[in-house]
């Protein structure tokens, strides 16, 4: 009988304790209710509807559509281009963050503000601007054409656009970490005889690595789904310079609903997986940050990420 005794607790009285810690501040019911309702109507139900629609396809049909040669070519370009762009941003982003935090030079303030431009500039504007800049008679395109390099309407163009839209992420995740990094660590390394390069690779790099990796992940995830800034510069040749989001639009224009649905659902699942991965990465690097050796103060390297994400 003793086993069942815990069941006699009045479930009605237990509810508020379990679901929500008691608070004297009013308004939880209204705010929470509205939040959940709005979220459900505008985001969750449409997303669920898309999955429901996709479930009309059989398992075999679904994968056949997802893995069709034209779709595969588009994944290679979207994921490959995003990877190259994110790697470029990893390297130049850490460099730019370093320069912006550590050095003083004229125009630094304006440059620092402009880093967020790819978030603030509408993608269509960025798209036509990049296409014009790199077209054979554009400012840079003309220059590069004399070297035999063609960017516009090639895969290089896709990479340039995907680098552009992911540019702020690494800078904005690494910058606050560098800013909060105590000079003491570098002084300690120097007093122990390390030269500048050893200090950078052994002391500084491990500290900024988790943040840089998070920025890399965010830039990659953003680039994979990008549409507006790419389609003007890409050339959009099927099998060659056609990104996955464009393929969805084309399928839709051709009234190939099942094809569009399958690829869209596939992209959605990848987005969710990447979101999960980035969240895990942030939790992990947040823990690394809290393992601050000296003062035990939890440092919060991702405060600025709200700004970074918010500025998309």
């Amino acid at each position: 009988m003793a086993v069942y005794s815990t069941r006699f607790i009045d479930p009605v009285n237990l509810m508020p304790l379990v679901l929500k810690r008691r608070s004297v501040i009013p308004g939880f019911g209204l705010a929470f209710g509205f939040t959940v309702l709005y979220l459900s109507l505008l985001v969750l139900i449409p997303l669920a509807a898309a999955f429901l629609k996709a479930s009309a396809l059989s398992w075999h049909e679904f994968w056949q559509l997802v893995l069709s040669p034209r779709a595969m070519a588009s994944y290679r370009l979207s994921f490959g281009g995003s990877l190259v762009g994110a790697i470029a941003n990893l390297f130049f982003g850490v460099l730019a963050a370093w320069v912006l935090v550590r050095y003083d030079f004229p125009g630094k303030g304006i440059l620092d503000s402009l880093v967020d431009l790819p978030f603030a500039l509408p993608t269509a504007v960025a798209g036509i601007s990049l296409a014009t800049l790199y077209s054979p008679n554009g400012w840079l395109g003309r220059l590069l054409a004399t070297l035999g390099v063609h960017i516009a309407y090639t895969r290089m163009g896709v990479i340039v656009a995907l680098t552009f839209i992911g540019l702020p992420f690494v800078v904005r995740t690494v910058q606050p970490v560098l800013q909060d990094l105590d000079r003491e660590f570098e002084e300690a390394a120097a007093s122990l005889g390390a030269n500048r390069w050893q200090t950078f690779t052994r002391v500084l790099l491990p500290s900024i690595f988790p943040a840089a990796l998070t920025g890399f992940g965010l830039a990659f995830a953003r680039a994979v789904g990008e549409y507006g800034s790419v389609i003007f510069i890409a050339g959009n040749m099927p099998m060659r310079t056609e990104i996955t989001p464009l393929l969805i639009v084309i399928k839709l224009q051709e009234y190939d609903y099942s094809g569009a649905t399958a690829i869209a659902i596939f992209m959605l699942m990848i987005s969710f997986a990447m979101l999960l991965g980035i969240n895990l990465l942030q939790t992990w690097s947040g823990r690394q940050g809290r393992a601050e050796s000296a003062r035990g103060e939890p440092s919060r390297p991702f405060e600025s990420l709200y700004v970074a994400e918010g500025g998309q």
Partner: protein
Amino acid sequence: MATSLTWTGSKSSGPSFAASGALTESASLRWILIGTALVFLSVFLFLPLAVVFSSALERGIGAYLAGIRDPDALSAIRLTLLAAGIAVPLNMVFGVAAAWALGKFDFIGKSILISLIDLPFSVSPVVSGFIYVLMFGLQGLLGPWLIDHGIRIIFAVPGIILATIFVTFPFVARELLPTVQAQGNDEEEAAVSLGASGWQTFWHVTLPNARWALIYGVILCNARAMGEFGAVSVVSGHIRGLTNTMPLHIEVVYDDYQFVAAFAVASLLALLGLVTLAVKSLIEWQARRAAQIAQAGGGEP
């Protein structure tokens, strides 16, 4: 210590670079790093921005104004203002409610709710628009029912507004939440203990404390709402003068080789982006100054 660049180590004669070498980089390396970063950022930030304005004004101010005064352009501007005018206030109300519920209370499933609010950030804009097509389109779940009742959502203004709401959904909540959370509950509890009602507490205590974050969130939300392209493109149907927003109008005109007209409308959106960045810098500058004042008031310099 002064910033690294202006600091040149000991004034005593001799190798001052060698002396400072262990704590900072040599001047030449410093300038190489700055130069590389400047070239990268210029190519990717300054040049695209410059192209927009230079192309818009290529044929003079008359052609520029003609591009904007075009009836289709004007109707695109009107539709963009309408969509943002509906989406932004709705998302603002949502953001405030979400920040209140998530920032001031502890409950089970809170972190899941936060992740769900982030969802639209991680979805490709094209897919965002597409899920509304699957919901309300002709082939969609509610399509047949909507046709029977003569309601058009997809390839019409309501779809554009819905897609705009979806892609700008998290902005205000995401900006407000950390601020509201960081402020803690002390002031609200004090207000309640002094007899304030929920609304009074919110209006007089919480909102004033979070006003900068709210302003910034709304401005970001607005910039994205007016500039959204992929999601809106999928649901609009590109009907000139009817369902084209500014970004869609830019695409149509650009594909027509009317570059000046395309860049003229684009320059308006680029200006909006620049204003957004300026406001962001201003708010950050303000926050830094407030932090400095608070620190100076704390005694230790």
